[in-house]
């Protein structure tokens, strides 16, 4: 057991070393780490409570009265709202992708491993879900689910399922034919054991890469949903909803729209850089 852990640590070390050799991936890793720190320590970093309104202090310009980026239409501190918005983006990004990954992986494993009619039913359903542009599927699901953090996660999570299912099924089909699977099977291992102990670990590398890339998509989708007024409910600060308000006051207070968008762009760029780096380090042949 101890040996296994040591090996695992070694593996992680080589992965990290490979990542750090890649300059762009290192930049991505730094951005993602910073954003994660901001999300976790938001209350310590924010200079004001994010929803605190001050009458008569609307649309303060940058660097006035202790408001680093000024205030919004309700006199709320823009910097603090952006800091808290990081939490929403990171939580939705990670949780929605985990949701999609868990269900998509299960479906892909079952479809690929058992094949036959079950495979057809699952994959035709996935094809059907794939026929909707991602954001349109998420928008449609939000009209059913209604606004709110959990519903945003579920909607974006569902829209993520078919991608994971297809990826995992493809991997399973190639691993399934390997000799060691046949040997394990003839030694009397159950299907569950074969799937989870032998097939799934072989799908992990592409899953990690695809999952990272999908997190970037999920963060943009959350921002888009909140921007359309379908995502996070006010007054909770989310980059998308700040951008939505900013759009209405573009002339009066351009920093609301400008900085919320920069936050989205920077985070998504960081995750994409990290994802590219992970792909090169883990699975150079993969094309996501």
């Amino acid at each position, binding site marked *: 057991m101890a040996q296994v852990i040591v090996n695992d640590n070694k593996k992680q070390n080589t992965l990290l070393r490979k990542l750090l050799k890649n300059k*762009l991936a290192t930049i991505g890793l730094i951005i993602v780490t910073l954003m994660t720190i901001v999300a976790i320590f938001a209350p310590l970093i924010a200079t004001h409570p994010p929803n605190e309104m001050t009458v008569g202090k609307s649309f303060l310009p940058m660097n006035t009265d202790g408001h680093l980026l000024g205030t919004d239409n309700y006199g709320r501190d823009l910097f603090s709202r952006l800091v808290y918005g990081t939490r929403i983006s990171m939580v939705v990004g990670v949780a929605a992708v985990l949701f999609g990954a868990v269900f998509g992986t299960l479906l892909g494993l079952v479809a690929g491993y058992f094949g036959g009619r079950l495979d057809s039913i699952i*994959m*035709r*359903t996935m*094809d*059907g*879900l794939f*026929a*909707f*542009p*991602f*954001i*349109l599927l998420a*928008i*449609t*699901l939000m*009209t*059913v689910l*209604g606004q709110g953090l959990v519903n945003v996660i579920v909607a974006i999570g569902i829209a993520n399922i078919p991608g994971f299912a*297809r990826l995992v099924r493809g991997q399973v089909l190639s691993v399934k034919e390997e000799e060691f699977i046949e040997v394990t099977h003839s030694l009397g291992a159950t299907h569950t054991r074969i799937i989870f102990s032998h097939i799934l670990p072989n799908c992990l590398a592409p899953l990690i890469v695809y999952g990272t890339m999908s997190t*970037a998509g999920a963060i*943009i989708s959350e*921002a*888009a949903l909140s*921007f*359309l007024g*379908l995502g996070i409910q006010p007054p909770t600060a989310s980059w998308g909803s700040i*951008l939505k308000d*900013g*759009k209405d006051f*573009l*002339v009066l207070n*351009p920093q609301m*729209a*400008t900085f*919320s*968008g920069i936050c*989205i*762009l920077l985070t*998504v*760029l960081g995750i*994409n*850089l990290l994802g590219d780096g992970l792909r090169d380090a883990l699975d150079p042949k993969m094309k996501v």
Partner: protein
Amino acid sequence: MGSFILKRLINLIPTLLVVGIIVFIITRMIPGDPASVMLGPQASVEDVENLREELGLNKSIPSQFISYVADLAQLNLGYSYSYSESVIGLIIERFPNTVILALAALLIAVVIGIPAGILAARKQNTIIDYVVMLISLVGVSMPIFWLGIMLVLFFSVNLGWLPATGMGNLDDGLWPYIKHLLLPAFALATIPMATFARITRSSMLEVISQDYIKTARSKGIKEYLVIGKHAFKNALTPILTVLGMQISNLLGGAVLTETIFSWPGMGRLIVDAIDKRDFVVVQGTVIFIAFIFVLINLIVDVLYKVVNPKVNLESDGGKK
């Protein structure tokens, strides 16, 4: 080729059926009674009951589904009360506007993205390569709804060069029409453009290093012919694959772009219909876009085969 297209068309039927089922399930799950939501709180019980009957909501779910499929087969997508028009009529009115926007975006993406990718590959590891790659890295990460707003802020509000919203009328001349189109099309083009640049670069680099390109060069063929005729043709297959994937992006992105620029297309129609809680329109437009998307993918698959006849798309049942 004919049998290939026919086979793919037949393969479409189960996908389209699944799309229909998904939209049916989603719209039936919308909380509250669609009829009373659509008519608003002031509606009389009688009106609500009449609308329920007209929408078939008082029938059982299976019979609702049968009449829904029958309607779909006749291209009857229902009647919108908030627009006082049939949904298919609304689509016929709006869809061409989305097509114009998407095609303009695709044109910008192809005309700028592919040459940029070729240029970066030709000048690999020079400052030009780095700049192209940096811009395209930022491009693929771009929240286009934000970019749209920034373009408005810069070109409409600050410089006053281009109109911020709306669609031009061709009767007023071509230039005013194009002026309205430029900003939304550019915003929508960003992600495909960056993706084209990236994939063209990597695909060209792979081809350029191959022996036949070296042979062509050593035969003294002019460089632009080597790149344009020999290399690019073989680098085209991955570019086409990406083209297919970008169509989903364009249709999805249109929803957001049209909202920002008040472009009277399908995306704006869907967002407005959600605002008005007009579920008949939401259902009809969503299913229409999904159908179009599936059809475009089929066309891309066929193009793929035309460009590269060796590709066997039938072996994997058309799955990508």
